[in-house]
């Protein structure tokens, strides 16, 4: 059996070699979207992607569940859904923003508890809100250069237990003395408020965008469109009214408020300035959640008979001024599309993280993206933004929706605190 698979592989590689010889004229070499849709043995493919439900920070269903337990839940489900032999997974990268020490110790422990052998390496990384995507990209790059064959990119955040002023250390006088570096600690709400003003994005537009995010998420939830990507978790939960500890099974995002409209959002008081436009209803929610993505080369997936969800084409990360943190996607998406050889019109679905309605709207308008292609199942405004988890969460949200609509090309992107943007191009199969 193994020998037969090897034979098939060799034959496939020889065939693709001869095919390459025949691509003699420029006309024969597909470019743009067509080239992107081709399948090659060295593609980095996703064979399983899932997430836990995302729940409200401080009062949601995961308020008493530590980050490592959420991660453990994602791992266990990833292994059981994909059927991958845990011993084949050589490295796991976990993006997480808030845990002390980066979470390195408890994430390694979570992997061991989830049944990975001691030979499976684990690292934690932190590129703020893009940590989950960075984890996937890091693992994909390691696979691409041949350092590992099979890896997991993951992200997790328990904002219930770890969000707060302790997440940033005091700036030294040196950092305070350089204006641009001192800007790195300006709270995001404050700088987004300024940005909304300077980029001229009125509150009405933001509220309309936020309301549509809630409405899309509500509709998607009712239609069961999240069911494929969500892995339900059973956790302990203390009822705040009775202090009674219960065991509950969580299978739905609990932040999606029903029947939201731009009018109902218009009543909420601004959070960061009296005359401001940003409030709790048009910014991302504080949440808990975890997500994981299983990555390998197409050739490996065929050898292991893993089903292929899609592939990671390329990614980019670009810095922007810290005070304009929100423009990150507008800066990161163009080079990413260029590297993939496609244009804005070639993309079927955009998953652009809704840190704030203002910055997401700005990026969408700046790049000329049709708004109906952005976050078709809603975004962080409706169901939350567990910081480190989001980048990995978008992968399953995107790939399952592309598959359902029989569309192919998607982009995930987000702005990153301290002034960065990250983006990645994916192709569903």
């Amino acid at each position, binding site marked *: 059996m193994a020998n037969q698979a090897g*034979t098939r592989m*060799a*034959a496939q590689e*020889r*065939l693709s*070699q*001869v095919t*390459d*010889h*025949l*691509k*003699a*004229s420029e006309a024969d070499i597909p470019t743009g979207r067509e080239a992107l849709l081709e399948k090659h043995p060295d593609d980095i493919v996703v064979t399983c992607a899932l997430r836990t439900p995302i729940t409200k920070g401080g009062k949601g269903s995961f308020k008493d569940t530590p980050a490592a337990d959420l991660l453990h839940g994602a791992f266990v489900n990833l292994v059981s859904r994909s059927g991958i032999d845990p011993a084949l997974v050589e490295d796991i990268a976990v993006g997480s923003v808030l845990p002390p020490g980066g979470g390195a110790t408890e994430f390694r422990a979570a992997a061991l508890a989830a049944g990975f052998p001691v030979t499976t390496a684990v690292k934690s990384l932190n590129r703020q809100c893009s940590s989950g995507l960075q984890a996937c990209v890091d693992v994909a790059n390691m696979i691409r250069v041949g350092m590992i064959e099979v890896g997991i990119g993951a992200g997790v955040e328990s904002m219930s237990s770890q969000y707060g002023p302790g997440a940033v250390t005091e700036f030294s006088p040196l950092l305070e003395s350089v204006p641009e570096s001192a800007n790195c600690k300006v709270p995001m709400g404050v700088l987004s408020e300024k940005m909304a003003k300077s980029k001229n994005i009125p509150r009405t537009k933001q509220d309309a965008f936020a309301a549509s995010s809630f409405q899309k998420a509500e509709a998607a939830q009712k239609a069961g469109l999240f069911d494929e990507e969500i892995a339900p978790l059973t956790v302990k939960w203390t009822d705040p009214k009775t202090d009674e500890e219960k065991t509950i099974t969580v299978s739905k995002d609990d932040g999606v408020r029903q029947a939201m409209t731009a009018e109902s959002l218009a009543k909420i008081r601004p959070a960061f300035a009296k005359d401001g436009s940003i409030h709790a209803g048009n910014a991302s929610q504080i949440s808990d959640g975890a997500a994981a993505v299983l990555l390998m080369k197409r050739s490996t997936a065929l050898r292991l008979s893993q089903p292929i969800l899609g592939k990671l084409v390329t990614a980019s990360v670009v810095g922007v001024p810290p005070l304009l943190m929100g423009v990150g996607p507008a800066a990161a998406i163009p080079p990413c599309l260029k590297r993939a050889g496609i244009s804005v019109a070639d993309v079927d679905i955009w998953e652009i993280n809704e840190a704030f309605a203002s910055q997401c709207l700005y990026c969408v308008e700046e790049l000329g993206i049709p708004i109906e292609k952005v976050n078709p199942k809603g975004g962080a405004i409706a169901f939350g933004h567990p910081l480190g988890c989001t980048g990995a969460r978008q992968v399953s949200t995107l790939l399952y929706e592309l598959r359902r609509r029989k569309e192919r090309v998607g982009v995930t992107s987000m702005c990153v605190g301290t002034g960065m943007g990250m983006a990645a191009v994916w192709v569903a199969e």
Partner: protein
Amino acid sequence: MLEFRTQGFNGYSVKYSPFFDSRIAVAASANFGLRNGMRSSQTTSPRLHPINLFFRFDTQDSLYDLAWSEAHESQVLCASGDGSIKLFDLSLSDFPIASWQEHAREVFSVHWNLLTKTTFLSSSWDGTIKIWDPSSSSSLTTLPTHSCTYSASFSPHNPSVLSAVSSDSHLRVFDLRTPASASNHLTLSIPIHTPPKPRMGVPAPVGIPPAEALTHDWNKYRDSVLAVGGVDRAIRTFDLRSPGAGPVAVLPGHEYAVRRLAWSPHLSDVLLSASYDMTCRVWTDGSAVGVKGGGEEVADPMAFGGGREMGRMGRHTEFVTGVDWCLFGAEGWCASCGWDERVLVWDVRAVMGG
């Protein structure tokens, strides 16, 4: 034109014996060399009418190239898809008399040293060239190219010099007389896709993207001249005396990748090519006195150096993968093989000037 059918086997390489004008060997593979199965190396005797199968060997994996031994008239070396190199003897049994297994991937070319006659080389998809002594069970030297090397060959003028072309669009020349060092005897590495130097009155050539090089051959008379062909369809000649000058001649014309090149053993400017476009073409590289061509014709903007196509043979009905000149007798006889399961023996003069 004489024809022999390699029933069930798609040809990959054809070579005339350096000892007998009546012997041709063919390396062929079942299923287009894409999947395992029975493969064969065949020796035919074309002088008799029709061509007779003289000897046949079957192997377990595809064969991509072969070379007659320069030291022993009945020995043939084969490059195998399983990474091995096998030596067959026509006077002995069905089994190879020697087999060398060091390459990690498909072996794409083998070539015997024409001058010392005691060594041969092989090149492989694994990104290495290996030099062997048939009496030794392991290779003498390994030269890395770091990319799939479709073609490697010893210089016919100097026993220590060898060349190779690879999928990275580079022509490499190695000189084994150089001391062992980190350069691994590499003396020249020429980017094949370099456009020719700009000429007076002609706009500077635009950049040409790199393309996989599939074949090359040393000129038999001019010891510094090589011809290279590959995926970008053009044949180029290079002069190793001025490696930075770009190609001496560029010969466009093939509609698909060039799979095999062979300089004439009789004329210093004549070149034969075999291509995926199902034709074999005869070319002059423009170096011979009085053969300047293309003056009045509408020149292809890619063409350079005064060379031109002199004729073509279009009788193959599938990719043509191998072509070789007969060393003996009247100049111009050659053999070609292809995926149409046929070996054709024909006279180049018959297709010229048409």
